[in-house]
């Protein structure tokens, strides 16, 4: 709901720019017929309710997504399209914090968003209720209206004529109107009906209720009402001669004079001053044809410029820091399981994209085949032609994506013979999809999975925590957590990692998986109901629980940090349990955690070596030396280095020939690259082996997979230097 609210706010902001443009146009098109104005407001209404749109380079809207719901809820920042505004607002909302608990600040922007959404809903409800009540009261008052003819009624309750009813509109007049006035008034109201104003005005009001918080929308609505009146006057007066126009004006005047019996009547929204209307009526001249043409063209141009969204500039899949982690939000298709799948994550994976566009997968299956590490899939390469992917996925994507279209797409091919592809597809509305396509490079390619990704966010502040309040304590055990020295370090990018330090020594560090609390993994493990603290018990813990993470494969020891609970009020609890055969058998302690420090300040350097901070992007440099042999160890030959001494390995790492000794024939090659690795892994290599092959023409380097990646050709120095070069 908060996200929906933010989308409405974005639409409102986009439409506000349009309102400004319409205001300008109204001034410029003063001589044009007034129905053009109503048309322009119609365009504004479309902008206010239609969430979908095309992107076009002609768009004049600074930004279609000033507040990106995903971003706003995680790392508050706005993109209004105007740098000046962004630069003023972003620092404020980024820094603004609110202290919910001591030493635990939550960003103010994120905190109040749901409350603002609530206020918005209340506002809508209030407007609707007020409208409904007023409508019913009016209906009651005019219940005894007497039929005059057709659909025209008269009632003593009517002071000023109006039309009521959407399906079967009826005209209501007061009694005692003189004949001539009445004719003109009826003509006016009938013109309203013919113009369908009895639909437009309520529709406009409905749109207003959705955007009640936006003063520009109120302004638009007020002006819409005025323009409707003026357009209606024009429609009537068009057919009248001068004498009749004067009569019409007097009818208008008479109606407003009657009103004087009513005391201080507030100027209603949208009602035009009688004087202005009469002036318009008397001065009305049929607008020249060319003016109408110009006005229509101007309206069309406005529609194109403002109903379309700006090209999604600046949205890029490249991570802003070392890497971004994504999790699977929705499955759209899975060939193995079948088209309809529940949103299970078992057997699926998280995805990481590193700064240099490498794709990694982290499998989440319990006891997975891969031991808690990221699998390198390949380098994502942007593809220019999207027709292939469009054809492949079109049957399995929700309708809205067909509407949006693909903005960019990247493919990482694996190195097998039948290259399968992992594809990252970015849609025009910023959504990111992921597809696995076996046999991508052949005609037999097909989609085996299609899913939607979402950046993994964390509701828990990374850092160091210590135990604070005791909630459940089974004193029967000898090992008791130490409130002074027991610390937990929680790091959430790339998954939930919790490190447990007892007196500065790392006792456990592991990745925890999100779970749902149930009887077998939680409730039944509390076997002593008497050792709860006075104010919280099991039911409270469960009721207040928002999320829980559980250690999957702990050692069989007692007093193990088993689960982390995040409660709805923001508190964190650590559950210690006993294990047997890898499964928890009973819970020993439950403590609340208290945040103490930022992760950087958590521990001094000596203990830094002792533990694994999770994942990082490692830069790895490896050097190889090898000796080659020239065909003729004289100065007659040299290496052809026209193509340079640098290049890329097939897996994307860089290589450079750093030394090349013509006397001895020794080559030194340096490989460098980055890889996403758990820092607890001892060694990482880019290549296990470089194989040097030499023949009379030159030297070929290939990796241990037998893919050649560089060739040095020998050339005779005294020969032509445009002999065939190396690859």
């Amino acid at each position, binding site marked *: 709901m908060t996200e929906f609210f933010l989308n409405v706010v974005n639409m409102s902001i986009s439409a506000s720019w349009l309102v400004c443009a319409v205001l300008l146009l109204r001034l410029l098109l003063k001589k044009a017929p007034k129905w053009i104005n109503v048309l322009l407001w119609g365009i504004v209404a479309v902008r206010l309710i239609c969430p979908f749109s095309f992107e076009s380079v002609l768009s004049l809207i600074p930004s279609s997504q000033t507040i990106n719901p995903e971003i706003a809820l995680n790392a508050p920042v706005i993109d209004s399209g105007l740098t000046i505004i962004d630069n003023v607002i972003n620092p404020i909302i980024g820094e603004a914090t609110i202290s919910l608990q001591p030493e635990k600040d939550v960003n103010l922007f994120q905190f109040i968003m749901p409350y603002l959404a609530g206020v918005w809903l209340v506002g809508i409800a209030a407007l609707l209720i*007020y*409208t409904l009540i*007023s*409508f019913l*009261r*009016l209906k009651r*008052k005019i*219940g*005894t*209206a*007497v*039929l005059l003819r057709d659909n025209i009624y008269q*009632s*003593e*309750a009517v*002071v*000023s*004529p*109006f*039309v*009521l009813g*959407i399906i079967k*509109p009826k005209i209501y007049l007061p009694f005692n109107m003189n004949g001539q006035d009445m004719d003109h008034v009826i003509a*006016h109201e009938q013109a*309203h*009906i013919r113009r369908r*104003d*009895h*639909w437009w*005005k*309520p529709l*406009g009001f409905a749109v207003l209720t959705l955007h009640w918080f936006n003063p520009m929308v109120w302004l638009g*609505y007020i002006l819409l009402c005025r323009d*409707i*009146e003026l357009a209606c006057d024009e429609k009537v007066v068009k057919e009248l001669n*001068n*004498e009749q*126009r*004067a009569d019409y*004006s*007097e009818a*208008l*005047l008479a109606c*407003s*004079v009657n*009103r*004087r*019996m*009513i005391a*201080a*009547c*507030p100027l*209603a*929204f949208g*009602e035009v*001053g*009688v004087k202005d*209307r009469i*002036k318009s009526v*008397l001065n009305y001249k049929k607008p020249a044809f060319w003016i109408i043409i110009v006005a229509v063209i101007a309206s069309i141009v406005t529609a194109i410029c403002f109903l379309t969204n700006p090209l999604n500039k600046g949205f890029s899949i490249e991570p802003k820091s070392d890497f971004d982690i994504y999790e699977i939000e929705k499955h759209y298709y899975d060939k193995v399981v079948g088209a309809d799948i529940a949103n299970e994550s078992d057997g699926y994976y998280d995805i990481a994209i590193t700064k240099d566009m490498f794709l990694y997968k982290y499998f989440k299956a319990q006891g997975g085949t891969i031991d808690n590490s990221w699998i390198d899939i390949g380098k994502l390469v942007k593809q220019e032609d999207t027709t292939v992917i469009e054809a492949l996925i079109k049957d399995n994507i929700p309708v809205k994506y067909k509407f949006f279209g693909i903005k960019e797409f990247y493919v990482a091919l694996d190195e097998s013979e039948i290259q399968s592809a992992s594809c990252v597809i970015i849609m025009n509305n910023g959504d990111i999809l992921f597809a696995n396509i076996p046999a991508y490079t052949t005609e037999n390619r097909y989609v085996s999975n299609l899913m939607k990704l979402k950046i993994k966010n964390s509701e828990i502040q990374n850092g160091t925590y210590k135990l604070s309040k005791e909630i459940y304590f089974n004193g029967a055990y000898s090992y008791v957590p130490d409130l002074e020295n027991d610390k937990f370090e929680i790091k959430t990018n790339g998954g939930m990692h919790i490190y447990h330090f007892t007196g500065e020594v790392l006792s456990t560090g592991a990745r925890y998986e999100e779970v749902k609390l149930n009887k077998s993994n939680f409730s039944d493990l509390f076997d002593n109901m008497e050792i709860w603290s006075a104010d919280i018990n099991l039911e409270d813990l469960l009721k207040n629980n928002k999320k829980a993470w559980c250690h999957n494969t702990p050692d069989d020891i007692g007093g193990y940090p088993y689960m982390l609970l995040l409660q709805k009020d923001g508190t964190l609890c650590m559950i210690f349990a006993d294990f047997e055969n890898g499964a928890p058998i009973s819970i020993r302690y439950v403590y609340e955690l208290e945040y103490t420090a930022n992760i950087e300040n958590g521990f001094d350097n000596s203990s830094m070596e002792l533990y694994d901070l999770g994942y990082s992007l490692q830069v790895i440099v490896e050097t190889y030396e090898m000796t080659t042999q020239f065909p003729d160890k004289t100065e007659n030959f040299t290496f052809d280095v026209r193509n340079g001494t640098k290049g890329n390995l097939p897996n994307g790492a860089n290589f450079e020939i750093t030394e090349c000794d013509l006397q001895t024939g020794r080559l030194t090659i340096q490989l460098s690259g980055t890889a996403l690795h758990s820092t607890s892994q001892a060694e990482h290599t880019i290549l296990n082996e470089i194989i040097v092959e030499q023949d009379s023409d030159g030297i070929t380097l290939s990796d241990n997979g037998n893919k050649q990646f560089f060739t040095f050709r020998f050339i005779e120095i005294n020969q032509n230097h445009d002999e065939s070069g190396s690859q």
Partner: protein
Amino acid sequence: METPKVFESEYRFCLILWEHEPIKSSELVNLCKEQLGWKPTTTYTVIKRLSEKGVLKNENTIVSSLVSKDEVQASEINEMVEKTFEGSLPAFIAAFTKHQKISDKEIDEVQRMIDRFRKGE
């Protein structure tokens, strides 16, 4: 007894009653539907209201008047439309109500504007 005051719409109803009384209420309902365009519920409500005001009596579903045409003050009462919904938010009323606090001065000004226009200025 003071002659009861009736609203204009009620007066129109009384005209029908005086013409056809005494009349069964169901028939009265039909007549009101034809001539006034009233729903049956509206007619019954008015019958009830007027009987409370002492204008008519409804005995055993026969309705007859208690006051004559001359006695009833044809109404100059206009039921005031309350300010709460007049020209306020309820724009669901395709209410092309035109109201504004227009002063005497303005009225004169506007009338002059119209007169000048008539004269062809």
